[in-house]
């Protein structure tokens, strides 16, 4: 069928609105950090215990900015979801048939994962700017370089496995995205903690507003633990689909190879988390490598190498 043009245009407008809302959220998060900083005296009195889980003692102004930032994030996410819904309606199919749609959906999963985390543990709201800034950057790059017109699917993608394989890949990727960012924050935080030992004089600067290292480490691990079985399932579902679409369940096509590499790296991360000598920073680095591999797989493998997965719709 021919895509519905007005819906397709609405989808593009929602994309722009989503990016705008997220950008405002980034500004609000920054303001929260700026106004939410407590007077140095209090920080000194706090004995250097980190204010991570206590937004309650934040000054009123900072708190209000924080609420505004979360509200803008949620509104942005609604517009963002609208991008995919209207695309899907315009083309009468699942809205992940090309790289533009796939990447947009992945970023949405990351935002939703962040919102859920932030609603459950308020201490994590502080990291909003570190999640939303990469999100805005990613969306701008997606809009600039990956954009593809709404259109019908090629024959090979017309399978119910598209829904299963690609949806789970998006979910897993989105979780890994959040996990990787949190691990980066953990690395920054521990670096900062090591340089500025607990002398009670910290409390200034953005880094010291991050949640405590232990909390970041746990969040990174929990999101990765959530993402790993999903990713495993996505790979298995991909293999089942490949068996009926390409005549073999595994053929070391570049995309398959990098999915495998990412899987092995994340298995390494989970092992590292429970192995003496690897806990803490080394494990966090492994998680960051995992995220780099995932992003590389999305960008490089789709755009540069040619393989069976070249449905990207990017030239």
């Amino acid at each position: 069928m021919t895509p519905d043009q007005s819906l397709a245009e609405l989808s593009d407008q929602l994309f722009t609105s989503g990016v705008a809302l997220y950008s405002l959220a980034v500004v609000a998060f920054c303001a929260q950090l700026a106004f939410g900083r407590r007077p140095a005296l209090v920080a000194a009195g706090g004995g250097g215990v980190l204010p991570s889980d206590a937004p309650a003692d934040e000054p009123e102004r900072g708190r209000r900015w924080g609420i505004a930032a979360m509200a803008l994030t949620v509104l942005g996410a609604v517009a963002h979801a609208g991008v995919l819904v209207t695309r899907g309606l315009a083309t009468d199919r699942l809205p992940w048939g090309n790289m533009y749609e796939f990447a947009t959906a992945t970023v949405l999963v990351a935002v939703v994962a962040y919102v859920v985390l932030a609603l459950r543990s308020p201490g994590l709201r502080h990291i909003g700017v570190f999640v939303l800034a990469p999100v805005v950057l990613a969306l701008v790059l997606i809009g600039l370089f990956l954009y593809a017109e709404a259109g019908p699917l090629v024959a090979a993608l017309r399978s119910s496995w598209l829904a299963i394989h690609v949806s789970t890949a998006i979910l897993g990727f989105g979780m890994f995205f959040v996990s990787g960012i949190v691990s980066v924050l953990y690395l920054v935080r521990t670096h900062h903690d090591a340089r500025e030992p607990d002398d009670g004089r910290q409390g200034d600067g953005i880094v010291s507003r991050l949640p405590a290292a232990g909390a970041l480490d746990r969040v990174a691990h929990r999101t990765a633990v959530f993402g790993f079985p999903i990713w495993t399932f996505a790979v298995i579902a991909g293999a089942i689909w490949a068996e009926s679409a390409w005549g073999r369940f595994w053929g070391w096509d570049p995309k398959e190879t990098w999915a495998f590499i990412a899987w092995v790296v994340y298995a390494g991360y989970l092992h590292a988390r429970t192995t003496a000598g690897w806990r803490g920073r080394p494990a966090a680095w492994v998680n960051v490598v995992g995220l780099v591999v995932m992003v590389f797989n999305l960008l490089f493998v789709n755009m540069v190498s040619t393989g069976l997965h070249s449905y990207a719709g990017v030239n």
Partner: protein
Amino acid sequence: MTVTAPPRESAAPTPPARPSAGRRVGDRLLSWWRRLTAMRTAIILLFLLALAAVPGSLLPQRALSQNNVRQYVADHPTLAPVLDRLYLFDVFSSPWFAAVYLLLFVSLIGCVLPRGLEHARALRAAPPSAPRHLTRLPDSGEVATSLPSGEALDVVEEELRVRRFRVVRRDGPADPAGTRGDLSAEKGYLKETGNVLFHLSLVALLLGLAGGKLWGYEGSILVTEGQGFCNSFQQYDTYSAGPLVDSADLSPLCVDLEDFRAQYEPNLTASSFTAGIGYGAPGEQGRPTSIGVNDPLRIDGNRVYLTGHGFSPSFTVTLPGGKTFENVSQPFLPTDQSTMASEGALKLPDAGASSDDQLALEGFFAPTGLVRGGVLTSVDPRPLAPQVAIVAYRGYLGLDSGVPQSVYSLDASQIERGRLERVGAANLAVGDSLDLPDGTSIAFTGYREFAALQLSHDPGQVWVLGAAISLLTGLLGMLLLRRERIFARAAPDAASGGSVLTVASLSRGSGQNGPRFAALAADLRNALDDRARGTSTRTSTSTSTRRPEGPPA
């Protein structure tokens, strides 16, 4: 059960007296084995495995495309032989890749088998007895109750059994009030079962893969409508077979292509490809069915796929003497999937008096042709107005020169050497013909569609699927379940006449344990209070409870 794999000692300390040579070798081997099966080694090997796979995606691989490798070798004449000696064009079947994953799997077996055996024992054994200092465990707290210690532990036991803990008492419930008593409880054995299942499934998966590689085969062939093939290596255009495949014992199966249909969206995106085929044992009347993209034929461990399609233009060649070759055709390979512009060749070695007088056509086929400035291009993948652009050659084709030739192109070196001479060229629509100077006439009579078919046989596939499912099951169990031990100790409290319960927990799994433990402690307190009130023959029902300490912040 420790939280991490126990640290392995690096080597047994050398005794002062020089031990026998055999003993030393044994010690050395043991120490290597321990190092290989340590978790750290597993992590390193996992990284090596990831790293080893990288060149396989960056360099062209023979298993994926012989052509790309050939092209790469031609472009990098000095580098390529070095890379080739390092197996970098066959990464996934290279000895060093195999070395990494085999080491990893040996490590895995060495690590997981003992763990599995220990777990099997633990499944049957009672939970271990409570440690001496309960309050040193990560979560612990005390509850005072007016109940005597034995009865207080009864309440704890009931509460834990309701929560599906396995509970043992190490006091003897019949003890009169006033003695100390211990209770240990455990649940979540399936978490460890999941771990062992997951790791063993990886081994099963590898075995399935290996079996498929050894006993599997795959053949591809282009079949034009009205033709067919039977399952034998001589018939395939290309095939690959595992080392244990006996070419005499391929399943007897023949497939005929009856018709092929491609459908397109208004914007010319291909929406479906369908091949009507007949299949059956050789000599049998074929059973009709249809196959398509995402929809292969599966029979008796074989699968037949439709992997591509294209057009075979057909020509009628009439020689000056009146001899004709009626409707000869040859598949032309698509060079552009979006317009199905295709290229190919037709060789007629018998179209002349001698081997130096052979005839050949090389050409371009456009399903919907458009001639602009004398050049034919294709503008639509559907065969709405088929046209060909052909060049005719006469001379020696070199078919019997011993060098294998592609059937889809002429041997360019024969043309360069002047052995094949260009004798005419034309753009033809269906029905048009090209007349050569010697009086030969070549008529473009139409086209038929061809399908690229692939037959695959992989006996390991079902195993691999089974292993993958059990792997995922094990993974979910290992990651989502929690393993939890609860210990309780009751001691008489002389001051109140009741007793004091110390409760502690040790857990492994995702999420934080603190809140969960606090909730359990609160439930225990309520249950104890209820019981105390219900059996309140005593004078005092004061239940001064102390909140269990929360976890360290």
